[in-house]
Every structure is written in structure tokens, then in C-alpha cells.
């Protein structure tokens, strides 16, 4: 049975989850990769284009298509999260409660406050089916893959790969 969750996530939401649980996530998520992480951490909190409290960050650089009335997400699987390990503790310190990615991260910073949710790497065409619309895009000067895409997702199927109790599925 999948656990249904909606963003923003509370501390209670994440403490209930255990490694191996399937989660269907709905609501707003924000993509960020290497450059966006550096920019998030270089700015004062009030200048961030999203509210980090309870937020879920998706390690993803999508394939997009420009439409007359906005953007379409064509393919949007996760990128390798371990590249973002160096920013993890400070990112979670902003109040971020969930990271979506693939390949795993250092488990320690998640303890007591956040979870790592894995999606299948490479399955970008399937992930895009959960994206209902692009709510906004920021920092396109970083390039399409590195920009901050604010996405609305519905029932995004994810697996709790690192929980807030120190458990990890990675071998």
C-alpha cells in the first residue's frame, strides 16, 4: 500500500516513513541541480523564489518544450544525487523535508528531520506522467537542466530509500 503525501511536508509526515515504503507524492516540488544548489545557499532566505519550509527538492534537469502558453515537461527523471552531498546539511537546515533523486546520499543529515525519496533513474518518460504542470521557472540563466523548475505533481510514485531514522536501502 502506498502512503499518500502532499507538500509541504511536516516533520511528523517524514518521521512516519520507513525505508522501503512506497509514497505517492502530490503538490509542489522544485528541481535543483549543482548550480541551483550553490545559488540557493548563496542567497538570503527572503530572496529565494520558493518557501523552503516543508519543501521537496527534486534532483532533476528535465527535457522541456516551449509552448505558446508556457512550458511542457517532456521527460523528467532524477539525476545522481551524491553530487549534491556537499550541500545537503545546509539545504535541510533551511527546512526542506524531502529530497527526490537517485543513487542515494549521505544518510546522516536526514536523521530526525527529512527523507530521501528515490525514483528510478533513466525512467524520465514515466516520471513526466506525474507532472501535471509547470507552475514557474526561475534562473533560466543557468541553462535548462540547471534552472529551478517549480512543478505540480500528482501521485508521483517514489520509494523511501533513506528514512529519518538512519535506515538506507543502498547496498
Amino acid at each position, binding site marked *: 500500500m502506498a502512503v499518500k503525501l502532499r507538500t509541504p511536508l511536516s516533520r511528523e509526515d517524514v518521521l512516519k516513513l520507513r525505508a*522501503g515504503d*512506497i509514497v505517492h507524492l502530490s503538490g509542489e516540488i522544485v528541481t535543483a541541480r549543482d*548550480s541551483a544548489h550553490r545559488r540557493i545557499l548563496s542567497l538570503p532566505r527572503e530572496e529565494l523564489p520558493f518557501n523552503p519550509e516543508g519543501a521537496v527538492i527534486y534532483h*532533476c*534537469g*528535465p*527535457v*522541456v*518544450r516551449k509552448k505558446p502558453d508556457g512550458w511542457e515537461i*517532456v*521527460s*523528467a*527523471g532524477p*539525476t*545522481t544525487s*551524491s553530487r549534491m552531498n556537499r550541500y545537503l546539511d545546509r539545504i535541510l537546515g533551511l527546512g526542506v523535508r524531502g529530497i527526490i533523486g*537517485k*543513487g*542515494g546520499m549521505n544518510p546522516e543529515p536526514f536523521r530526525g528531520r527529512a527523507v530521501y525519496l*528515490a*525514483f*528510478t*533513474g*533513466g*525512467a*524520465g*518518460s*514515466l*516520471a*513526466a*506522467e506525474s507532472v501535471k504542470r509547470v507552475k514557474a521557472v526561475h534562473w533560466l540563466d*543557468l*541553462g*535548462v*537542466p*540547471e534552472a529551478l523548475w517549480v512543478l505540480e505533481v500528482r501521485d508521483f*510514485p517514489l*520509494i523511501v*530509500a533513506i528514512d529519518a531514522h538512519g535506515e538506507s*536501502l*543502498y*547496498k
Partner: protein
Amino acid sequence: MSLLVEALVEAIRLAVTRIPDDTVEALKRAYEEENSRIARFNLENILRAIEIGRERSIPVCQDTGTMTFFIRAGIESPFLKELEGAIIEAVRKATLEVPLRPNAVDVLGGRNSGDNTGKGVPIIHWELDKGDEVEIAVFPKGGGSENCSALAMLTPGEGWEGVRRFVVERVRACGGKPCPPVIIGIGVGGGADYSLKLAKRALLRKIGERNPDKEIAKIEEELLEEINALGIGPMGMGGKTTALDVKIEVAHRHPASFPVGLVVQCWANRRAFLRLKPNGRVEVWQ
């Protein structure tokens, strides 16, 4: 010229939207063998993503990679002068039309060129041959698996035992990062640069297609077994299938050196081929 560009765009589209049949079969076999719920969750997602890519003609993986081309050019082909320009134009067109993710950024400022071209990109490997036909392999190479590539300059005394240790250790260290189940390309001999090129080109072979040399074929099979015994599994969350295949290519080496190039390919095993006849006819296949 424009026909050649169109055919190249089609080959790029084929490579990124359609995972080849031999790979799909291998993934289905892996799915049948796994009994862990989590390994099956990942393999099910992989197989569905492949179906969606085919049905909707969209890139299966959002990382459409660095566009890489291996050309075997017959020196009597009338098209040699046009090839490089046609490839660059095709990459620009494919970026808009398929679409592809713009993945070429400059090394100093990290600025994105926006169209997958730039200094040295797309990457084109040339090899001259006899005859009047040109064969081009289209190979979009994703970054996550590419980051697990490595070079070892072993001593000749370490030899093939050293190759085994190096490859298995590297695959273990990479865990789920390169999106397993992976395909492992290994190049032995030739020098530092050439061993890596051999390793990458080896990945163009079909799953199950062994090196024609029986002894090398045996090492491929043994390494495959050893890698799968690691238990890394689909996406690094445990399971029986870590690699779908191991491909080894060799060249003679300097007596003092034993270079080993290792290139990892994720399950999104993208490739397409194109043949250009002297009369301008083009065939595209996978």
C-alpha cells in the same frame, strides 16, 4: 546534404526514444528473475518508461547525453567533406525537434550553448576504411554513467587478474550511481587514450554478443557473473541484476604497460546506426 541531415535527426530520435530490443529483452529477463519488491518496483518503472518512450516518441531518459558519433568512412565516399557539418546541423535540429536536453556547457563559466554543440562537441570519432560507403554509429552518452568511467595503468605483472580487480572494485564503488542494470565496456591495451575509446566503442555491440576471441569471451562471461554477485541490483537498492552484459575489446600493448579503460553504460542503452551509400541512399537501424 539536407537528406543526410534529416536521416541523422531520425537516427538521433530513434536512439533516444527507443531502447533497442536486445536490451529490452535482457531487462525483461532481469525482471522475471528478481523477487525483491524493491528491485521489481524499479524494473517495472524501467519497462514502463521504455513503452512510453516508444508510444509517444519522447526521450526515455531526460539526460539525452553528449552526442557522440563513431564514423567508419570509406575513403572513396563522395560525402566525406560534408559529414562533420551535417552532424553538427543534425544535432542542432534534433535538440529542437526531438527535443533533446541542451547538455553542452563551457568549462570555465558553465554557460550552456543551448543546442548541444560547442568546442569539440558533438564528439566525432573518425576511422578511415576502404570502399565508398560510410557507416555512422549514433551514441548519446548520459552523464551519470559516464562519471563512473575510469582508466587504470596496470603493470603487466598484474595482468588480467588486475583487470578483474579494477573493474569489480570500480563497479562496487559506483553502486547505484550509474543507473544499474548497467552494461560494462572494457578496453585493454593500445595506450591510455585508446583503451578508453575501445571501451566506449565496445558498448555498441548487442547484449549477448560475445567477443569473437573465445578466451576474451570467457572473461566477459566470468566478469558478468562476478559483477552480478555484488548484489548492487537495479538502482543500487539490491538485487540479482547489476549488469546486463560485459563487453571487452583489445589492442596490442606496449610491453611495459597494461592500460585498462572502463566505460559504464546505464540501462538506457541508446544507439542507432546509419549507412550512407555513394548514390546518397541512407539506411537507419538500431
